[in-house]
Each structure stands twice: as structure tokens, then as C-alpha cells.
């Protein structure tokens, strides 16, 4: 077989490539991405929370954040953007053409907050989850109580991560 034989060249190139594939698929690679399927599961499965290491990774990975935001926004029923920068105080009300979101302290126990969502259009589809993206890149989600008419109300501790995130004007909210 002459060394410049095209059959030999192709065969050897394939052996080289095969070795590279095996190297690429060796286990033990440092995690640098969150699988898209994991992000989809997080967005669609109300009972699924990201494991702590992935949640932490998400906070520091702008690509994963952009991917998750696209996944959530693509199927979102409604979206409330961040509030104006001047709104520096604690936020208790967010409103769009379609929805109103209100945080109200409980009279019985001030350490508890009512999260109330109202749909302005009685015919509009009712969300079952809300996702809140904080200014720091953290994502929080909450499964909503069933709607009664146009309204759903959930009571949470004032320290609950969703309440804390919603209290800041930079938070972005998606209903799904």
C-alpha cells in the first residue's frame, strides 16, 4: 500500500477521529453546562426543583440563564417586565393589561404574605406556575393554588424566596 493511497489515508483519518471521539466521551468532565432537557424539566414539571449544584451553576452562567429565559418565555401566558429603576421601595403591586399581582401582609400574622394574582380577562387561560427571575440571575418558581374565578391566592412566609424576589423592582415575572 503506498503511503499516499486515498484508502489508507481515509482509514487512518478515521482511526484518528475515533480516538478523538473516545477522548471526548471519557467520563469525569467538569460540568460547564446545564442540559437543556434539565431546564425544560425545571420549566414544565411543577414538582421538579434544580439540584443545589445546578441552581448555583445557573446563577453564574449567563448562557444557561438566557436559555432558561427563552424556554420559559416561549410558553409563557403572561410576562411582567422589571419595574422602573426609580421604584426603589419594596414592591407590593405589579400590573399589566392582563394581570395584577399583589403582595399583602397577613393581618393575623405579619410574618406571612398573601400572593394574589388576578386575571383581568375572565376568558384568559389560567396559569399554574409563576417564575421569578431576580436581578442576581436566580430563578424561583412557585406552583399556584387553583384559581377561583379570576383570582388565586397563596400564603407564604415573608422570607420565602419568591416573596423576597418579587419585592425587588428588578424582578421579572412569567406566568405559565
Amino acid at each position: 500500500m503506498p503511503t499516499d493511497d486515498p484508502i489508507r489515508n481515509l482509514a487512518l483519518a478515521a482511526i484518528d477521529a475515533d480516538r478523538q471521539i473516545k477522548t471526548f466521551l471519557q467520563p469525569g468532565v467538569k460540568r460547564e453546562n446545564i442540559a437543556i432537557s434539565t431546564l425544560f424539566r425545571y420549566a414544565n414539571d411543577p414538582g421538579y426543583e434544580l439540584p443545589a449544584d445546578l441552581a448555583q451553576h445557573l446563577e453564574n452562567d449567563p448562557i444557561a440563564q438566557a436559555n432558561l429565559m427563552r424556554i420559559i418565555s416561549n410558553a409563557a401566558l403572561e410576562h411582567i417586565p422589571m419595574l422602573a429603576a426609580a421604584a426603589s421601595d419594596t414592591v407590593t403591586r405589579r400590573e399589566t393589561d392582563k394581570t395584577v399581582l399583589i403582595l399583602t401582609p397577613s393581618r393575623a400574622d405579619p410574618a406571612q404574605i398573601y400572593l394574589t394574582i388576578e386575571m383581568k380577562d375572565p376568558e384568559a387561560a389560567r396559569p399554574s406556575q409563576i417564575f421569578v427571575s431576580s436581578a442576581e440571575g436566580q430563578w424561583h418558581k412557585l406552583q399556584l393554588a387553583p384559581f377561583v374565578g379570576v383570582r388565586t391566592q397563596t400564603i407564604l412566609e415573608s422570607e420565602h424566596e419568591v416573596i423576597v424576589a418579587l419585592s425587588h423592582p428588578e424582578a421579572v415575572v412569567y406566568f405559565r
Partner: protein
Amino acid sequence: MATLLENLNLEEGKSDALRAALSCIAEASALDGGPRYSEKVTRELARIIVCRSYAKPLLELSHLMVAASRCGGSYENLFWGISRATSSEFRRSFAALHGASDDISISEHGVSHNGEVDVFQISFARMPLLAALLEFMLTTIGFPEIDEMTSAVRDRAVTHEAVLETARAMQRSLYAYLKDHLPPVQRQRRERHFLDYVDQHAGNRTDANAITDDVVLGYWLAFAEGSDIEAKTYRGVYETARRLIIALDVAEDRLSSRHARTIGTDFEAGEIDPANLDAVVSALDDGESPLQRLIETCGEQVKFINVSEAEVLSDLPLNDGTARRMPKSVLRNAVFGAVQLRLTMALRRGDALAQPLPSAADEFYQARLALYNAVISGTEKLALAAMWALHQAQRNEAIELALKLAPDINWGVLARHDNDAGSENVVSIAAVGALNKFFELEPNARGDELSALLADAKRAWRQVNRAGFRDDALEISVDVMAEAVPDVLRLIDATRQLLDRDFKPVDWPGVEIQDASTFAGILRRLYALNEDTAQHAD
């Protein structure tokens, strides 16, 4: 040297992101915690990335995204509405959407995107790979980018030309990504060194035929004790030879006139067509052997093959021309490759090497051949038992098994005399009627040949006690059993071909006498063993 090391580190750094992206897909989990993509799919994905043979898969993916969006409203729902990316899951998902769009048709085998002039088809079997490719694209290029790149063809009925343009846009993105993240392959010295030796010793033979038993043994004897090249183990040399035979055979086939050449590839300048490279690398994938395919299809559910049997058959090159070119080397690897491995491991552990080296009186090759025969006979018996279960479940795969296990049987019992044919001598077999008659047959050892075969199958079923071969679990295992039939048949065919065609002409007793002496000599020198046993001389 410093520069070399620096370059190596740079290359490794360059590929870290790509490795991480592939690893992310390999580790993606289904809802039950198992892998979302099979190992086969992950390997295929890595192959099309490394070989840069992604043009056709990206076109298929673009059409699939169109089909998913047109039928389901959102491609995300289809791709991630399923937990485990398998062809049957995709089949189920599309079946639920049947008739949802005018320009998309769904059949038993796949999905078609009907254009004005032609039809683009994507089989369900391709969809797991395309799903992994989509996940790879979203991970590396970004979800927003791919979402926008494909939005124009997803939102409305489009021409095939528009889908092709979208696929090209994705190709360009991936090309740019790989330019930054896929380092050039490293040339493997071992195979080139071996081929140089082949050139010097092959006489006037060329291509894979030049790699013979004598060449493999000669190479090992020449270099095992030296430090020029890593060739200490016979198994390593055998594997090098085997991989070269596979690669050279497929390369020759691909470069023959039977396969269309890609326009734009400059073969004179040594350029390699990605489709050809992909085909040869695919042939090197051991996961494609009938044994691995069967293990992957059945897993723990239907034990056509157990761990110890799989270990025995794993010696055999079932998917290529190795045994035809170098039958003795296959058994040398199975026997002496294993002996050498045991010696190496014992030395590493510091254990005593009490086991004597094989002698001709052990008839080691003949014993090994008898073992292969016993294992595959057992598999044939399990296939016969499976035929009974599949017959009871009225699955067509029962007929495939019957045709294979009893090829000379008289099937006339399934024929019906056609009164309209005009002649008493004309007998036609109407497929549906014959199928029904087959499933109506009762086992009868003294009946016609088919009934007697069924009686054998029923007896075999009762004698087997393995996972998947029990009456109480049959409802669960029958689907897996049916799916495994092609792989079982391939395994039986390939093993029988080796035993009956490739190994049969060899004078094994004569080879045993020669090899016992040759291998004992070199192994004693390599590991400083004394004359009588494998004990260290010191």
C-alpha cells in the same frame, strides 16, 4: 518540548467546552433518573461532530422541527414532552398528533414533510439522534439563537428550499463553533507503525488482505520486547490489526464507484469527505456489533444472553472481516491475550503467578471453539423458546424466528388452494391468510413440520428459566423480545459464520502445538517466568 506541551495544553483548553457540551448530553437524565439518550445516540452525536458530517442530520433536524411545530404547535413540546429519547417514544408522540397538519403526514415508520414537488421523510429511528443534535445545538450555539434561526420555517407552511436555507444557517453556526472548539485530530502513531511493517512484509498483497495471521504474530514478536513502540501486549497488537482491517475495508468500499462523491472535496489534495469519514468511524464503533446491539436492546429485561456468555462471545469480531483475514489471531487473542492480561494484572497486584501457561495437550483453541459453539447453541435454544412466546402473542417476529431456525421447513400447510386460479396445480399463499393460519397452529410433535417446530419451541420455553422467559412476566417482556429478534438473528448468523466458515479450515491441533511453544517463549522472556509454570524465575 516546552512549545509542544504548550500547544497541547492550548488544544486541550480549546476542546474543554466541546467536551463539556457532549458530556452534558451524555449525562442528561430522563424522569426516572436513567439516561435521556442511549450510549449509541451519544456516540453517534460525537461522531457527526468530530467527523463534521452534520450537514444531512441538520437538514433532517430542520424538517423535524417543522413537522413538530406544524403538528404540535411547539417543537419544544414534542422534543421535551418525552422523557427518554427513543424511537418508540417519538412514534407515540407523533401518533397522538396524527392528522394535525396538511403538509405533514405520519406513517408507521416516520414523518413526511410534503413539499410542492417532493417529500422529505424522517424515520422514527433517526429522531433520538436528531433530538440529541438539537440539544447540542441549543447548548453550544444557544437556545435564543437557534429558536430565532428556525422561527421562519416553523411558523407557517414553507418550501423545502426554505428549510434547506435554515439548515444551512445552522450549519454555518456549528462550523463557526467547531472552528474555535474542535482541535485537529492527533495522528495515531501505533497504526502507522504497524502499517509500515505490513508494507515491508506483505509481499505483493495490498489493502486489508495484507494484514494476515503471520503479519500480526510477526509484528508482536518483533516489537513486544522493544521500546520503539507500545506493542507489549498481543491483545493491543491484535486490536490495532483488527481496527485497520475494518477501516481499510470500509474505506475501500466508500471510495469505490458505488458511492457518490461529494462535490467540492479535493481528493487529489488529500481532502477527506466527511460522509466517508463518518462511515468508516461508524464501522469502528464496537457498539454496533450484534452482541452489543442485543445487550443494549434487551438489557436486563430479556436475557437472550447473560453476562458470562456475553464475555465469551465478546472475543469474536462479529461485525467485520477480521476472522476471514486472520482466524488464528482471533483465537490467539482469546486464549493468549487473556493469559497475558492475567499475568500483567497478577504482577501489578504482586500476586503469585501459579497458573501454568497453556500447553498443546490442553487443546486450548479447540476447547475455546467448543465453548463458542455451546454458547451460541444456547442462544439458538432461547430464540426457539422466544418463538413460542411470540407465536402466543401473535407477533410477526415469530415467523422471522421460524424461518431462521428451521429454514428448510415445509410451509405448504399455510397455503390455501385458490379455486379461481384455474388449475389444481397452482397454490397461492395469501399473506394475511397464511399469517392467521400460522397463529392458529397448535404445537404437535407428531404433526406437520410447522406444528412439530412449535412443539419444540413450547418445550424449549418450559425448559428455560431466565429473565423475560417466564409466563408471569411475558406481558411486559414480549415487546422487548420482539424488538430484539433482528439482533438475536444477527448474532446467531454472525457467530455461525465465524465457526462454520472462517474457523473451520484451520488445522487447530497443529496451530496449538506451534503457538504453545511460541507464546510460552516470549511470555517467559517478557515477564521473567521460569520454565515449568508461570512463576517468576527469581
